[in-house]
């Protein structure tokens, strides 16, 4: 038997990213399409015909910030300005929270930098009674649904007003009132749950639909397959989103995608149409979600949407991306920055300008600062007050059983 030998690596194949630290960023493998180039099939199309929409890239905004083609959702300037504001707010919030984490104010934080459009576009293309099963990088949904920022922060700093009683890591929001499910720290688990929720809506004869999000890396989990299988078999009204931000902590997307760079293309084999979308193009994202929502509401079942974007920041506050990818890789990202692209579009429409942008940023920075100030008035993780210690024994059972009562007494709370 031949033994393993570094000099003779034989057939073993492990995909490698196009660039590692100190190397030149290289995105030549990203298959681009011209804005407006991809046809928009009818929502009741046979999933089998979605090869183009799932392997090429649905884009509306071109390099000059003009909207093009059949996927242009033709949104009003007011709508677009609101969208821009929400994306900017996400970024302003993330920036401050990330810094605060670095200052030790909270234990953990995750930014959506560079992929803000994904959450905002989906949330705005859906209805408020639609149920969201997000991963940890769709905080934008909360802004789009007008969640109180102070409450969000109270959760992140685990203080006495944290609606999760300090039980969850920061950014693992739950907001039932806003139809925003409990974010899990376990990757992918929410994907098939969203299908179950959608099936229940169907069974109850309601009209709401569900949506869920996983990352490129998470598509490898078994729950991804569970979701696609259930959604296909029961024709569930659900939108299944893959946010392909090129990285899963230190692994590039190829460690999940292998020889098939499109995650949207996975859908077709399950009888689910796939849409592969420029994830930094608000208009394209909005249009794709609308298409999928219409399909779902018409009883035609699920859609798999892949948003092709780039994770501009580290995975979380716990890692240093300079150790596994070129430091300035984001700068070479061919799809740009979703905020700049929407700005450019609004400017091209004559509906936005430098000054308004600066005013917006200033106002939002102040909003975030004030919110944080208010949030800290209810306590912080390190200094308290937290939720009463006795609450750690609550919410496990509808009535506290003897063993938890004993344990609570043992702790003396």
């Amino acid at each position, binding site marked *: 038997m031949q033994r393993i030998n570094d000099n003779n690596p034989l057939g073993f194949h492990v995909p490698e990213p196009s660039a590692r630290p100190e190397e030149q960023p290289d995105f030549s493998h990203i298959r681009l399409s011209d804005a407006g180039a991809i046809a928009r099939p009818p929502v009741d199309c046979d999933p089998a015909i979605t090869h183009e929409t799932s392997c090429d890239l649905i884009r509306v905004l071109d390099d000059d910030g003009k909207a093009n083609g059949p996927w242009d959702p033709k949104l009003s300037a007011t709508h677009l300005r609101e969208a821009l504001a929400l994306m900017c707010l996400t970024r302003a919030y993330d920036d401050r929270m990330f810094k605060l984490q670095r200052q030790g104010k909270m234990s953990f934080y995750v930014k959506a930098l560079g992929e803000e459009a994904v959450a905002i576009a989906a949330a705005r293309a859906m209805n408020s009674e639609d149920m969201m099963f997000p991963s940890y990088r769709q905080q934008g949904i909360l802004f789009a649904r007008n969640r109180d920022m102070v409450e969000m922060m109270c959760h992140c700093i685990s203080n006495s007003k944290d609606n999760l009683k300090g039980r969850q890591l920061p950014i693992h929001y*739950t907001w039932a009132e806003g139809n925003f499910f409990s974010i899990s720290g376990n990757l992918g688990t929410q994907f098939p*749950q969203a299908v179950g929720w959608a099936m229940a809506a169907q069974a109850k004869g309601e009209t709401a639909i569900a949506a869920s999000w996983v990352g490129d890396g998470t598509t490898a989990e078994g729950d991804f397959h569970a979701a696609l299988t259930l959604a296909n078999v029961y024709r569930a009204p659900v939108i299944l989103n893959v946010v392909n931000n090129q990285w899963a902590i230190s692994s590039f997307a190829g460690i999940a995608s292998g020889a098939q760079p499109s995650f949207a293309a996975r859908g077709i084999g399950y009888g689910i149409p796939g849409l592969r979308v420029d994830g930094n193009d608000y208009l394209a994202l909005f249009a794709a979600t609308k298409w999928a929502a219409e399909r779902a509401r018409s009883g035609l079942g699920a859609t798999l949407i892949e948003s092709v974007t780039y994770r501009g920041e580290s995975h979380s506050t716990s890692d240093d991306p300079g150790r596994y990818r070129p430091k300035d890789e984001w700068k070479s990202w061919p799809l740009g920055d979703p905020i700049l692209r929407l700005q450019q579009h609004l400017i091209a429409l004559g509906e936005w300008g430098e000054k308004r942008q600066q005013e917006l940023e200033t106002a939002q920075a102040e909003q975030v600062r004030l919110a944080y100030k208010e949030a800290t008035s209810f306590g912080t993780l390190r200094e308290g007050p937290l939720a009463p210690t006795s609450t750690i024994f609550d919410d496990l059972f509808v009535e506290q059983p003897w063993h938890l009562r004993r344990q609570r007494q043992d702790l003396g709370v």
Partner: protein
Amino acid sequence: MAGMTMIKAVNSALDVALQNDPLTCVFGEDTGYFGGVFGCTGGLQEKHGKNRVFDTPINEAAIIAMAIGMASNGMRPVAEIQFADYIFPGLDQIISELTRIPYRSAGQFLMPVTIRTPCGGGIYGGQTHSMSPEAFFTHIPGLRVVMPSNPYDAKGLLLASIECDDPVIFFEPKRLYNGPFDGDPDKPALAWSGHEKGEVPEEHYTVPLGKADIVRSGSELTVLAYGTMVHVALESVRVAGMDAEVIDLRSLMPYDMETIAASVNKTGRCVVLHEAPRTSGFGAELIAQIQEDCFYALEAPVLRVTGWDTPYPHAHEWAYFPGQTRVIRALKQVMEG
């Protein structure tokens, strides 16, 4: 009242639940048209419609995730896992999700989900149709673990489980489906007809969760058992001619420590039985708590009679099963101790 097997009792509980609550639904592999490989859901699809009783793809994680999603949307799903041996692909959804969602959402999403699954050996099912994995589940915070030993309890406990807003895993000892089993494979199979606990009301009733049942009072020693082992315990006690108190735990988590402690404090001796492997089996938990709460009453070590720390071997099933010989030996030993 009607004579029912445990299969029929489970079926009747599901029927009542489907009847009483339009938000209840029943699903699993082969549970729809066919009515389940053991027949527990037989006739329910025909009666309640295929929107409420249906087949699922063969993916235990998907089954449980679907139940979670439905529960988060206000429904009260009852999922079947075809054999307890096949629950592990779905375990992450139970540990990380089902039991955590009420906690991590601080009560914003309750999880009134019941997972039914047949467990235990004695049918020559080999290592993949015989497991008793209950101990794993008793170590999961926020999960109720239930195992009936007869048709009457099966129906009452299942209805209580379905109606409870906590997630419940409900183990059905398959060896008891058609009749009680006292551990002697050479005897002709017994039937539930004629058995007191085989008389089951047709209508709705519940048996409380968290409450054990003293199935035989006695003063010499306490025998703790659940599922199939309850019958083995009763017969072993009878054969050995001992004045033992036999307790059918019924709920494993939370278990009924009050009843257990009262009995052990009275008898001073205790034997714990289960079919599952010994090491870190549920017996260990019971013993740890008993020696803590009843230490000064104990006159001998609490003994366990259990399955071995091996998979359930097919051909040597009866060398694995903790039958009367081994139980009686332990009863005697604990009396000598």
